[in-house]
């Protein structure tokens, strides 16, 4: 097993390198100059030149051919990408061009915000998706099943940004129950431990803080959760249905086991495998959805941040965040495969 994990971890590396290459390719292709983006209407030639120099934006993206012709070998390799890569090897994501402070620092602040949102959404998704999926599979073609199916289809059909807006319209504008954005009300502070506000507030026993944080996170979390919930429900249902066709379910029933035991002991464990894969994929969906959700709920997470950074051409941020997301994505996939081995005795990676 350990060996397998190691192999997988190693095999991830080329993919990651590929990812960084793609990022740089885009950085090379996308028009618009970070310096100009930063200085706006006031940009003067000198300043633009200085900033380009400073962040090595004046270097070629990958390799410097001209240096080679002039017989300057180190110059040949002295490119934006190589510099970036060297920094990366020292676990340095570089500095933000606009803010001139380390990307890693801001990441520490902002990533937990997204993580908290994603985790909560995934929690909702599993909490609702799996039981409902099982229920509607076991009561196939009942009204419950029908509602579930339609509901889940509706779930994947609603644009989450629109849902977010509708939530705000209903709960913030008209009912005035919930705040329409950001993580905390002004002045409320929660002593950071993990920067996951809900968790921290509980750890520090700051229940007022917890309630405030909760009221802020609930709407975005729900908006973000819709698609995963829908998909997990559908997946659970269909794979339960497949499993319930199996002979060993009949065997179990013939033993005189109660329906509950048959469903949850004999069917679920088998049905869970494809569901896990889907859950893995949903992590990707969540992170993608964060871009929109965070924009609407002005949530100070990485989704909104990376979007703004693309528009602001703050490349170190874009690189850092995209890489992080890619790493998470690949890591989750690894977890999925491992849990396969744990759940299904037929699969073994030794």
């Amino acid at each position: 097993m350990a060996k397998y994990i190691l192999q997988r971890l190693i095999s991830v590396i080329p993919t990651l390198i590929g990812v960084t290459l793609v990022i740089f390719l885009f950085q090379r292709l996308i028009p618009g100059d970070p310096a100009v983006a930063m200085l706006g209407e006031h940009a003067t030639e000198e300043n633009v030149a200085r900033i380009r120099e400073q962040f090595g934006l004046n270097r070629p993206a990958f390799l410097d051919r001209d240096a080679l012709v002039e017989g300057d070998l180190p110059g040949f390799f002295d490119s934006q990408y190589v510099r970036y890569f060297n920094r990366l090897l020292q676990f340095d994501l570089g500095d933000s061009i606009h803010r001139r402070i380390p990307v890693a620092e801001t990441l520490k602040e902002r990533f937990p915000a997204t993580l908290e949102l994603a985790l909560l959404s995934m929690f909702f998704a599993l909490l609702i998706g799996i039981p409902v999926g099982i229920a509607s599979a076991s009561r196939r073609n009942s009204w419950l099943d029908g509602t579930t199916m339609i509901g889940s289809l509706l779930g994947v059909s609603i644009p989450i940004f629109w849902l977010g807006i509708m939530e705000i319209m209903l709960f913030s504008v008209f009912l005035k129950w919930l705040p329409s954005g950001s993580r905390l009300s002004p002045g409320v502070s929660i002593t950071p431990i993990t920067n996951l506000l809900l968790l921290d507030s509980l750890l520090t026993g700051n229940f007022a803080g917890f309630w405030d944080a909760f009221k802020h996170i609930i709407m975005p979390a729900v908006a973000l959760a819709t698609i995963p919930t829908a998909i997990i429900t559908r997946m659970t249902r269909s794979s339960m249905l497949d499993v319930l066709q199996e002979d060993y379910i009949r065997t179990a029933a013939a033993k005189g086991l109660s329906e509950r035991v048959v469903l949850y002991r004999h069917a679920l464990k088998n049905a869970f495998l494809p569901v896990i894969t889907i859950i893995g994929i949903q992590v990707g969906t969540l992170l993608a959805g964060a871009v929109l959700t965070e924009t609407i709920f002005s949530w100070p997470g990485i989704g909104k941040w990376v979007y703004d950074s693309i528009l602001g051409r703050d490349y170190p941020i874009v690189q850092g965040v995209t890489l992080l997301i890619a790493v998470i994505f690949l890591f989750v996939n690894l977890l999925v495969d491992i849990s396969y081995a744990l759940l299904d005795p037929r699969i073994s990676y030794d």
Partner: protein
Amino acid sequence: MSTQMPEVEVLTDFAVREHRSLWLDAWRRLKASRTAMLGLVVVAVFLLSAVGAHFFWNYNAKTDLDYSSKLLPPNLVSTAEKPGVHIFGTDKLGRDIFTRVVHGGWNSLRVGLVAVSISLIIGCLLGLFAGFFESFDMNLKEKLVLMCGLGLVLGLFPAWIARQWYQTLLFGGLGAASVILEKKLAYVKLRPVMFAAAGALLGGLSGLLLAPLVGLVCAVVGLLIGLLLNKPVNGKAFSSITMRVMDILLSFPSYLLAIAIVAFLGPGLEKGMIAIGVVGIPVYARLARSAVLSVSQKEYVLASQSVGEGHGRILFKHVLPNILSPIIVQATMGLASAILSAAALGFLGLGAIPPEPEWGAMLGDSYKFLSSGAWWAVLFPGLAIVFSVLGFNLLGDGLRDALDPKMRIN
């Protein structure tokens, strides 16, 4: 066998259940499923209104402007104090939202179709070949094409360094050589060395014409390429490379990738289509590949291969028809998600160029008036998206049940 009474033959027939083709059967099931029919109806309404509006309802967005009637709430009957019928209300520039929603449908439709066909065609081809060559080894011709191509692609690198584009041809040739000589050199221990040397020479010499250092670098690069090319790539390698590339695409959050592509191509609905299409490729590629892999093990394919049918024939006569149904389902659902993504891009201001009506953009422009209670400007475009997408999803879902062989058993 024993001889049998003739009339028995005749008589037995009525006992036998009449035979139905898969597609007919599927259609019957589709008709049987009410939800699928509901989906079909919604989709039909969507298509008709979109196409009808585009061709028969003349609307010039360019000149549509009337400050006097801006942000009017829905008004069904024209009265003295409320003149003008706006069943969905009007927007910031006093444009009738209903008109724009209906015409917006055309854009969503276009995006959906174009985007899906892009990812469908490219993705499926990739998946087909990947899956196919994973289960059947390539013949000489295919190897030749593949290796030549590989040589050309790899050759681009030294060529780019030395700005000598003819180098790509050289390495393409090297690739071809490795296929042609494969048999001859099969047992030659030194083959890698030979090819490395060849590559080094090809790159180095031509590089030297420019500058010594260029020569050196090109030689090194050429050497590596030579090593890579020394043995023809087999189908499995080809497949795993393709799929690895797909993984890379997949490990970007879809919207970010789309945003990046649009930022590169420049804004506009057409660019949006391409972006969404490209982002969708991996899905189809994976689907097609896995489908092909399962089908390739089927007897009829093995049989057709054993009677020596050409690969192309096997692929398109035997494999392709049998992986169609999952792909059709995916495509229908793909339409839905394409419309969604397009709306998202529009919402972020990267979609259609104003004043072109597009649902996502309409949302994005109007939601800043929400706090002042202009709910209609946000509600109706949103509902339009939901209904059209829901329609395609219902239909796709129905299709899945209808085409799924598992369902045909009980």
